[in-house]
Structures are given as structure tokens and as C-alpha cells.
């Protein structure tokens, strides 16, 4: 599917999606409440068939956190970047997509560990690399006086 057709199809499926062409891939912003149903839809839809989730990233923007999902369709060879903003940074939470793509379970655990984003309905949400009482090091306001020398 071409990028233009992809943008048109995504807007048709999800009215609240803001879709645009980024530097490389088509990017779409989805409201957190609509994430799970949207993700299920684009996996099941035969014309989209996004069956391969190859990257899950959490990003800290000062007033909110964001999850970025890179998806590819093995059959159609098109790529889509799905972004979802969390509500604030105190108790950020989004729905898990690990029931749709099993690989997400571990990438989400990593995002939970390093950024403190909670994933609703996640089967096994534990810290992955760090201790339970450690902070969230990939957040921009993370302070570590011993290991991080600020210049």
C-alpha cells in the first residue's frame, strides 16, 4: 500500500487519529483510550495486516510521556508508526498490546523499567534491568549524583 493510501485507510478506520507522513514513515497519533481497539483492527484488517512489531520506544517529553510503536506488514511491506501520549507524567499508563503481538510484552516491561510507564492488563509487569526501588533513568528529570556528571 502506498503512503497516501495508508493515510486514507487509517483515517477511515479511526476518526480520532491524526495521520501524517513523517521523515520516512507514515505516523499516526492515537488517543490512549482508543489504542487497543485500533491496534487490534490494523492487525486483523487484511488490507493492512500489520503483523510484525519491530520496535517499541518510550520517549519523555517534558509534560507527557509517549509510546512509539513501529509496525510492518510482512505481506504488504508497508510500515506504520503509531504514537500514543500518556496523560501527564505522574501516573502514566497506556493499554498493553502484548495480547496482539507477544513481543510487546518484553518491550513494554523495558519501557516500564526505564520510563515508569504502566501498561494496563499487562500479564507480567516487573522491572527488567533494575531494582524495584530504583528511579526511572530514561526520564529527563532523573537525578543520579554518583553516576551522572552534569556539565
Amino acid at each position, binding site marked *: 500500500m502506498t503512503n497516501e493510501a495508508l493515510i486514507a485507510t487509517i483515517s477511515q478506520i479511526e476518526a480520532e487519529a491524526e495521520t501524517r507522513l513523517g521523515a520516512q514513515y507514515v505516523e499516526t497519533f492515537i488517543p490512549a483510550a482508543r489504542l487497543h481497539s485500533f491496534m487490534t483492527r490494523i492487525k486483523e484488517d487484511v488490507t493492512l495486516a500489520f503483523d510484525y512489531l519491530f520496535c517499541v520506544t518510550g520517549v519523555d517529553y517534558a509534560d507527557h510521556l509517549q509510546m512509539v510503536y513501529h509496525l510492518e506488514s510482512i505481506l504488504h511491506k508497508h510500515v506504520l508508526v503509531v504514537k500514543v501520549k500518556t496523560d501527564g507524567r505522574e501516573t502514566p499508563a497506556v493499554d498493553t498490546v502484548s495480547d496482539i*503481538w507477544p*513481543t510487546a510484552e518484553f518491550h513494554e516491561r523495558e519501557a516500564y523499567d526505564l520510563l515508569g510507564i504502566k501498561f494496563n492488563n499487562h500479564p507480567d509487569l516487573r522491572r527488567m534491568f533494575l531494582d524495584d526501588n530504583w528511579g526511572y533513568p530514561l526520564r529527563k528529570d532523573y537525578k543520579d549524583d554518583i553516576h551522572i556528571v552534569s556539565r
Partner: protein
Amino acid sequence: MNELKEVMITTDEIKTDEYLINMGPQHPSTHGVLRLLVQLEGEIVHNMQPHIGYIHSGIEKMTESLSYPQIGHLTDRMDYLSAHQNNEAVALCVENALQIEVPDRVKYIRTIMSELSRLASHQLWWCVMGMDMGALTTFFYGLRDREDILDIFEETCGARLTVNYSIPGGLMFDIHPNFQRDVKAFIKKFKTKLPEYDRLLSGNVIFTERTKGVGFLSREDAIAYGVTGPTGRASGFSCDLRKHQPYSAYSKVNFNEVLSDVGDTYARYQVRMQEMWESMSIIEQLIDNIPEGDYAVKMKGVVKLPEGEFYQRVETARGEFGVFIVSDGKKNPYRVKFRSPGFSNLFTINHIAKGWKIADLVAIMSTFDLVIPDIDR
């Protein structure tokens, strides 16, 4: 007579309790500090939880205070056996973001070096796999041949493992005058050595008994779990980025994507063995045709990426490696994510190893070719 009857109990009546053992973090077959918490009943694996983070080095956090040329140097500490491909991924990502076109010479040399890295990585994988399964001879064979590639690396860029060769804009140095001669001599020699590998291990009865029909991964599961590289291709998941999204000089060479639809431990072994032949073929097609020209383009003293998000995917020896850069226009990136192939591959092992014996778990782990710093980052 009664006493004898008491002894003759059937195996069905023998019950053992489930118990947990720690495999690692200092276990030779985990190839680094990886701890597997294995739930066993007798010898049968019921469940397995990988515990990682023992050598988590916070590379993603460190990148946020480093400049773009500096980031490349951290990436060869991640998957140290695919150091060149990791460097290349960062270099390509920055070049694409700045819309810099590197000379053809750079593309050719990068491709040759990538394939040499892949060969060296697969050689080490092969010799360690043999050792995991109790064949120490393979270890000496593999390391002997890998030495030749490391010598070429040393001559080219001064380092044997952490090469730091690809930088944004081109290469650190031009190739050594002996480079082409040495690479050709290595290929000629290794073509006679690779059949030895097959004679030593591939047909060995003990080896085939322990690998054929053991540890299946289906194509659907490979895609769902994001298993890439030779491991994914052994399950029939056509995921070779060199073929599907050619970068550097891969569009200029003919090679086959090695695929198997069996998906067992032996298929994963065979895919890597065949890939070594393909890598040699790629190098042979390029080595005599390296174009003349500059080995790097002139870059600005301070590299600043335009505001935006940039993603680059490359095929390392272990699978798909991704660099995701979020830039806010400054000289440091706002956020960098490294999508490492080992991370996604590791978490499939529990799915595969359930129901197999603990000795099979070692064989399955071996064919996943895990490098722990790649997982931990």
C-alpha cells in the same frame, strides 16, 4: 517374592516435584551474564524465565549527552560481534537525516566489512555451539579461522573487535594497501576450511540426534515474537533486510536469502552455515570492484540533525538492528533507542524450550547465538 514386587514399580508411579534451578549468571553456555530461572520436573523444562540486566550499561541514557559521531563508538560495545554493522546503522541514520550521499567507495567497503563481521560472528557461533554440545575441537577450528578476519580488521582500523570504522560521513580511515590481497587470500583459504566444519559437526551422529527435530519455532510465532536474523529465517520468516531494504552496496550484489521452513535447532544451524557461503560470495563480487574516490565526505565540526525522528534498520549477524533517533535540532540527540535483535530473540526461548529436556535447552540457546551486551545495552 513380595519384596521383589515392591521393587518392580512402573515409571508412571515415580513422581518428582517441580523444582527451580538457576542456570547462570555464570554458566558457560549462557555466553555471558544471563540468568535463566528454569522450572524443571526431572529433566523436563516446564517454564523458563530469563533474568537480564547484569551488564546493563545505560547506553541509551549516555547517548543523550553525547554528540552524534560519539554515539557510534558506543554501539560496538553492544553487540561486539556485529560491531561494524552497528556502527554502520548509526552512520546511515545520521547520513539519511542530513541527506548526505556517501561515495560509492564507502558503500563498497562498508558492505565488505559488514560481511567479514558476519563471517567472523558465524565462525565464533559455530565453534561455541560445538563446545556447548561437548565438542571442544570445533572451538579451535573456529577461532583459528576467525583470527584471519580479525587480522584484516586490525590492519584496516587498528582494532580487532570494537572496530569504530564507520562514522557519519564515511569511514575513519581508508583501507590498507594490502586489504584486497588479504581478503582474497582469506576467502580462498576459508573456502577449503568451511567443508571441514561440515565434516566435523554437521554430519556427526550425536550432534544431529540432539538437534534434528528439537525445539521448533513456527513462522507465525517467529513473526509474532519479532524473531529475526538467521533464527527467524530458519522458521521461514523472510526477514533479510539486505534483500528487502538494501542499504550500502547490497543492491549491487547477487546473493540468496537463506531460508528454511523446518524451524528446528538443526535448521537454525544450517541457515547460518549456508549464510557463510553467501557472505563469501558477496565479498568476492565486491572486492575487485571497489571504486576509486574519497573514503569520507567532509562533515561539519558539530553535527546537528534537523528536528524530527529518524529510523534505520540494518541486518546484523543476529538479526534486525534498529536505530531510532529523536532529534530536537541540537548537537545531542533527544532520545535514542536501539532495537537489538538479541532482546526480541531471547524471550522466544521459553516458548520453544517448554517440554524439552534441559540438555535441549542448551542446544536451543546455542542456535539463538545470544550476545548479552546486545540484550542488556
